[in-house]
């Protein structure tokens, strides 16, 4: 954690609390959430469904406002969505009436980038995500994995300082998911992109993250921040599952999110 503190904080949550009403009952989605994410970090947020992790991502994106507390971007309170914080959703958010290139270039088009430059940037991204030959296809003509690649590329295209990803691979089949995860790691590391990745899968969280924010079930609170040893850019699943350190982290995070952890090990928290 010491090395992380040396970097500049980019996202901060201060005493965040979020409540909403469902069927006349008040539900506390987030409570006392304090979190600092530094520029260049790849953070994974993991927790059981209903722990408010998606709400947290929406608040950081500016698509939701907390009931109390503050969410800061670069030290300033977040007011509404902005192109500084991109977001990839679990559901298919790419527009079905736009082609692959139309979707990927959408953010650049909104930013007013000249057409020639935009086309060049989009072509690069298409190559990077391996969708050459599918440029003029509509999302309905693509597989689930390809569509999520388009969604990621659309957000990546504008190079926002922060990218929030809310379970982006949850709807993709297990084998494609592995490939997408490996590609994401490579993309994030080579571009030094700050990513906040929300997931309910402990393995995914451990595989992707520099550190893991483990959250409790309703009301959502941050239980512990678990660092992951650096596995390098070209980490693969095969390599990760054989590493005993990773195995230990996975079981620790499992204990946490299932609420079975014995008193949080102080040694790990201050590691």
């Amino acid at each position, binding site marked *: 954690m010491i090395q992380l503190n040396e970097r500049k904080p980019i996202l901060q949550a201060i005493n965040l609390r979020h409540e909403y009403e469902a069927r006349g009952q008040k539900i506390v989605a987030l409570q006392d959430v304090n979190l600092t994410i530094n520029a260049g970090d790849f953070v994974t947020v993991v927790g059981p469904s209903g722990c408010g992790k998606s709400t947290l991502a929406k608040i950081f*994106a*500016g*698509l939701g406002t907390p009931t109390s507390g503050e969410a800061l971007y670069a030290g300033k309170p977040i007011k*509404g*969505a*902005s*192109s500084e*914080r*991109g*977001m990839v*959703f679990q*559901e*298919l*958010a*790419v*527009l*079905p*009436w736009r082609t692959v290139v139309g979707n990927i270039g*959408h*953010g650049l088009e*909104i*930013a007013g980038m000249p057409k020639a430059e935009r086309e060049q940037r989009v072509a690069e991204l298409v190559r990077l995500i391996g969708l050459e030959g599918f440029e003029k296809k*509509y*999302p*309905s003509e693509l597989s689930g994995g390809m*569509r999520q690649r388009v*969604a990621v590329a*659309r*957000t990546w295209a*504008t190079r*926002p300082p922060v990218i*929030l990803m809310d379970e982006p691979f949850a709807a993709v089949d297990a084998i494609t998911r592995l490939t997408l995860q490996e590609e994401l790691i490579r993309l994030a590391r080579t571009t030094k992109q700050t990513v906040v990745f929300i997931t309910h899968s402990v393995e995914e969280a451990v595989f992707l993250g520099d550190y893991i924010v483990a959250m409790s079930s309703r009301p959502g609170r941050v239980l512990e921040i678990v660092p992951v040893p650096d596995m390098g850019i070209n980490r693969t699943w095969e390599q990760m599952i054989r590493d005993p350190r990773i195995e230990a982290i996975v079981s620790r995070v499992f204990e946490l999110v299932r609420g079975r952890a014995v008193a949080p090990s102080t040694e790990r928290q201050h590691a």
Partner: protein
Amino acid sequence: MHRSSSLMHLPAWVVQTSSIFGLFLVWTVASRFVAEPAILPSPAASFQAMADLIARGTLTSAVQESLITLVIGCAICIICVVPFALSIAQSRQLAMILQPMVRFISCVPAIALIPLFIVWFGFSTKAVYATLFYTSAIPLLFSVITGVQKIPRVYADGLRPLGAGPFRIVRDVYLPGAMPGIEVGIRLALSYGWRAVIAGELIIGSSGLGRVLAQARAANQVDQIVAVMIAIAVLFLIIDRLILFPWNQLISSRWSSF
């Protein structure tokens, strides 16, 4: 069982054509049976009457008048209603307040409003336009609102972090996303509108096919009445098949959800 399955093997157009052919067969037999051309003219007599009306130029100019009224009226309706519907669909509260109001108004059939339109606009094409507008606006409004409400929220949410403002979101999400609803609305507007034009012209008697119908009735020319009826049906079939149907196919293929 055997018969129905063998019917299935025929191409659809053969079945459809023979169905229409059957209608004419029944009509021929019925007109023979009635044997009174002043009550039910035979198909042959009706087509003869149609040919006469065309030769005199009555039918062609009436068709022109009615179609122009339909097209201009629907265009005005689309220009007024689509932006209105898009804006009220944005706000759930506004839609909630306005929908019962519009629903109540829509309970009054257009034909019942024609007397009012005659008082306001006289026996003129304006009264026909009013009837058409009233009839077409309501299904169009509801279709567009439904179309917008069917757009997944995540489409707009996904665009905001890309830097899209409200105007962008309407242009890039709501307008194209509501296309299937707009398309259904325009189809309904045209088909309801076509009926409204004929009914309006028939009662108001200003111009078009409705007036020819009214004149034929006054002159007791039943064969002409039937001829005009066929013209009305065929015209709408052509509009629907040649223009609206291909458009619908295009939209539903592109907009199909995953």
